[in-house]
């Protein structure tokens, strides 16, 4: 046999297989059922006047609602910031060889994960019942900052404390999981090069842990967007409390709750897109293949190769 007859040398492509595909009648049945249910829901949404769509349109960009949206965003960003910083700190403390330091971290996480967030928010709002004045300074020593409890703990500060300190406990566990996911060999290699513990953490462990930490942190941020609605119980004008105030006057709860739902959905959707780009940034060096694009992910390609 001569080499010119090798199949790779062939210039003609063979015909694609033509076969009768397998029929899937039940898929059609399921699709029809789902579409019927969806159609009836859509119909009721359009036909039922109690949805009050004209009111939804009227209040969607109402100045008070917009202020509530801004307040919700502020609360989310600041609480997450407190949570992330606290979480990293607690996770590092948890790894400390000093048992008092690691024990303190454990105790913190135990307490804040073991009690309801709503209770914690109420607690911080009422902290002035416990401390009339608040002194910051050397323990058992002179105070550096002295303040009246009621002026310092405003509703906003109580909300931040409630959401942020609680989030810190959850973030600590997420960050710790990220540290544990980094191979021990990485730490050893860094140490053998003469990097200190802190440098190893900063340049080797944290950047790699980020890849593991980020997806759940994104989920936490999205949860936080929604959990901020809990602080409506302490009369803070975030999105939910704002619409509650409006419908307590005009007695149209459904349209106003729809307004709030639309805003929450819009914010979580934007957060989802942001999460995708941040994850891609920290995924560098971990995948040989090109990362799946947003479009591919939405369509469910990429990871199934279908």
């Amino acid at each position, binding site marked *: 046999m001569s080499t010119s007859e090798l199949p790779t040398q062939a210039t003609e492509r063979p015909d694609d297989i033509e076969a009768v595909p397998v029929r899937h009648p039940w898929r059609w049945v399921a699709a029809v059922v789902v579409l019927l249910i969806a159609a009836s829901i859509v119909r009721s949404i359009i036909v039922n006047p109690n949805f009050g769509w004209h009111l939804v349109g009227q209040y969607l960009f109402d100045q008070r609602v917009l202020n509530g949206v801004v307040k919700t965003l502020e609360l989310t960003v600041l609480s997450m910031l407190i949570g992330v910083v606290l979480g990293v700190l607690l996770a590092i403390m948890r790894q400390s060889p000093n048992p008092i330091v690691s024990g303190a971290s454990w105790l913190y996480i135990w307490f804040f994960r073991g009690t309801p967030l709503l209770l914690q928010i109420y607690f911080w709002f009422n902290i002035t019942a416990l401390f009339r004045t608040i002194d910051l300074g050397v323990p058992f020593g002179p105070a550096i900052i002295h303040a009246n409890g009621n002026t310092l703990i405003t509703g906003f500060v109580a909300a931040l404390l409630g959401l942020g300190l609680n989030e810190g406990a959850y973030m600590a566990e997420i960050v710790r999981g990220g540290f544990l996911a980094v191979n021990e*060999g*990485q730490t050893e*290699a860094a140490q*053998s*090069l*003469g*990097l200190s513990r802190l*440098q190893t953490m900063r*340049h080797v462990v944290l950047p790699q842990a980020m890849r593991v930490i980020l997806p759940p942190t994104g989920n936490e941020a999205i949860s936080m967007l929604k959990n901020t609605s809990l602080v409506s119980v302490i009369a803070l004008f975030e999105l939910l409390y704002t619409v509650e105030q409006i419908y307590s006057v005009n007695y149209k709860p459904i349209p106003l709750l729809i307004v709030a739902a639309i805003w929450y959905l819009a914010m979580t959707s934007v957060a989802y897109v942001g999460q995708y780009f941040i994850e891609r940034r*920290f995924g560098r060096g971990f995948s040989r293949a090109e990362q799946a694009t947003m479009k591919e992910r939405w369509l469910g390609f990429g990871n199934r190769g279908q």
Partner: protein
Amino acid sequence: MSEPMVKAEGVHKRFGRLEVLKGINLEVKRGEVMCLLGPSGSGKSTFLRCINHLEKINSGRLSVDGELVGYRESGGKLYELHDREIIQKRSEIGMVFQQFNLFPHMTAAQNVMLAPIQVKGQRRAQARDRAVELLGQVGLSDKVDTYPVALSGGQQQRVAIARALAMEPKLMLFDEPTSALDPELVGDVLDAMRQLAHQGMTMIVVTHEIGFAREVGDTVVFMDEGVVVESGNPADVLDNPRHSRTQTFLHKVL
């Protein structure tokens, strides 16, 4: 005669109840290439890790370049070294691992540059020039800006060698550097090590590559069950082993 680079006297190491090193005595001279052979579990890697204080020894004396590892001796008493001092001494010893342990989030050059910038305070540009030069020496001029995931095992291990060399170490430790490699990739890594040996680097190499030990090693040490069974120049140990344990081992690997 100058002081040996590494000197071990009666070095013991236990992990809980398990005694891994049971009194190691050996000396590595400056510029010498010592190959440590022995079955797995014989304590070779543990001994290597004791030298740069990744493991703490339980008894005996271990010194590098005339200074005790992990302790300072003064007035007949031993004082534990501060973390800072241990780190300083580690930075003078290069180590290459079986699993390469490259930093996956950094390119080849960034892997090599990290320690010179962070530990020695070198400027970026200077560290980068040196990294490119070192990567060239191990035959990876075209992989400078490649992430480890896109490199073969042999290429990764050569980056790891360049990374260790960037700290200008006085001693290099190799912990089974070719054991995780596909057979056809072993040669390039051994070439890089051979070149290093010819430049006069003091090296301790834990390996199963008998051919490399014979050709490049100045001394071959055979360890088993936590003790040095025999040592000497490669021809003697590898071709005329005196102990039955060495004979059995060599018979299995050759």
